[in-house]
């Protein structure tokens, strides 16, 4: 009964699967099932091509009804990996052999990867890469220029689309061998390198775009200022006040576990007190 013809997924099917994921990973999001439906629509073309009879298809699809959630960009690699595993399983089924790829393998791997990749992806893609591109784009938006926004749209979408495409096909190609690369020593070193770029660019963004300035000054009787606090502070270290406020916010959140929203409220209080004391003054008039 063994069918010796080995099934190989067509490029066209893989493309469809990828695009289903690219578009639909979050569209039907709920707190309960998160990306599960996105996953199902991505696997559907795969399953339809691999299994000729309805029953096998249903059985295969059931695998992917298990809960799934990860960072969608980097997570594309998991979809690619399961495409490859599904292919292997289909060939087992067709050849009637008792292979080692089954429901448990696939879902174990999916569940094992989705956590780490959510962490890495959220911090590297959403938390570092996007802010870096945004930071650069902000620098091109001087005077209300649309250049920055256009730059961001193009660069991010090219990186996003082709990066995810690359991840999908790399995942398909490597199958479960992809796991090592994502989590091994080299992966760690790459993350360290990206974090370095991220740290420096974020510093640059802070210095370029955030400006906390005090209006405090001491004037003598004739009205001439003999102490302009802001200038003194900047002569110590340019941007000192800005840096101090950022570090203070970081400290409240990271060391005191205060939520961002509460920190914002604290800033409102600080602003009010500062305004009352004459430390802050935006200097507005009609």
């Amino acid at each position: 009964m063994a069918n010796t013809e080995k099934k190989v997924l067509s490029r066209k099917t893989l493309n469809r699967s990828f695009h289903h994921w690219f578009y639909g990973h979050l569209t039907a999001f709920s707190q309960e099932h998160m990306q599960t439906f996105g996953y199902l629509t991505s696997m559907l073309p795969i399953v339809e091509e691999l299994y000729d009879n309805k029953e096998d298809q249903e059985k295969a699809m059931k695998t992917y009804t298990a809960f799934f959630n990860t960072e969608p960009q980097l997570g594309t690699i998991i979809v690619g990996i399961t495409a490859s595993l599904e292919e292997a399983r289909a060939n087992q089924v067709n050849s009637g052999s008792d292979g080692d790829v089954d429901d448990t393998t696939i879902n174990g791997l999916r569940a094992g990867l989705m956590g780490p990749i959510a962490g890495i992806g959220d911090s590297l893609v959403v938390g570092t890469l996007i802010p870096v591109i945004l930071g650069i784009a902000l620098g091109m938006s001087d005077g209300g220029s649309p250049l920055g926004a256009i730059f961001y749209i193009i660069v991010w979408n090219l990186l996003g689309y082709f990066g995810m495409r690359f991840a999908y096909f790399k995942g398909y190609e490597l199958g479960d061998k992809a796991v090592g690369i994502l989590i091994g020593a080299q992966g760690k070193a790459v993350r360290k390198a990206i974090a370095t770029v991220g740290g420096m660019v974020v510093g640059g963004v802070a210095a370029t775009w955030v400006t906390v300035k005090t209006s405090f000054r001491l004037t003598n009787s004739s009205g001439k200022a003999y102490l302009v606090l802001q200038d003194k502070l900047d002569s110590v270290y340019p941007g000192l006040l800005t840096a101090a406020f950022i570090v203070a916010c970081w400290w409240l959140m990271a060391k005191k576990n205060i939520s961002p929203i509460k920190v914002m409220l604290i800033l409102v209080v600080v602003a009010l007190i500062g305004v009352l004391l004459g430390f802050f003054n935006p200097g507005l008039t009609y």
Partner: protein
Amino acid sequence: MTISWIQASILGIFASLSSMPGMAGSTIGNYTLGRPLVGGLVCGIVLGDMKTGIAAGVAMQLVYIALVTPGGTVSADLRAVSYIGIPLAMVAIHAQGLSATSANAADLAKSMGTLVGTVGTVLFYGTATMNLVWQHMGWRAVEKGDFKKLYAVDWGYPWISHLFFSFIPTVLMTHFGSSAVQALKTALPMDGIPMKTLFTVGALLPCVGIAILLKQIVEGPLDFIPFFVGFTFAASLKLNLVSVTVVSLIFAMIFYKLDMAISTNKQPVASSSGGAVIDDDEEEEDI
């Protein structure tokens, strides 16, 4: 400046596309259209004042530069920030007679946008909850083996959730909100404590955005160093951000190689002479 029903509707569509679980996929939707920088461009075009739109978008982008939504935990809703906050901020800037690219306009935008964004998180939870209805239909289809229906569940029905939680709120708030904002001018004079505080808060808010980023990057005190070096490059040397990025690459390369040197180094040590030197990587963070 007023916002017509048509303008408000276009903003409503963008709100639907760009929200978290939005209808354009996260790459194009939330991560592109949803970013205030892009939202500023869109609102600027729609309301016919690109300069103010972008200036307001840039200002808000700073507050939300670090917005990550791990596991669907949403601390601010970008559809509200970008397509309700920015239009209202634009109206306010016009009403107050501020120059579009002034620091004051930016501060006003930040305060207003942040308020709207924080309040707007309710829209996110609304959308996600309503999606449970369609998912329920999806499970039934799966049971019946009627897989084709999944496409409608994943790509189609959620538009209904967005009609209620993205489109309608955006249309109403931008259309009517604009007159409310106009009224503010008479109520709160620019040199009064409330407005002064509002603008000061606007200037302070991006500190939170940057601090959230920092939280992600900083694991030990040493991790502050790249941040401050980048800060110094930009603040003291006036390097622009592309240049900062270029310079940062050589440090990235060094740390990459260092990490590889240390980790390939540790392996044989670990196996031959025990764990004595293993944890020096962690230790150094404590200095």
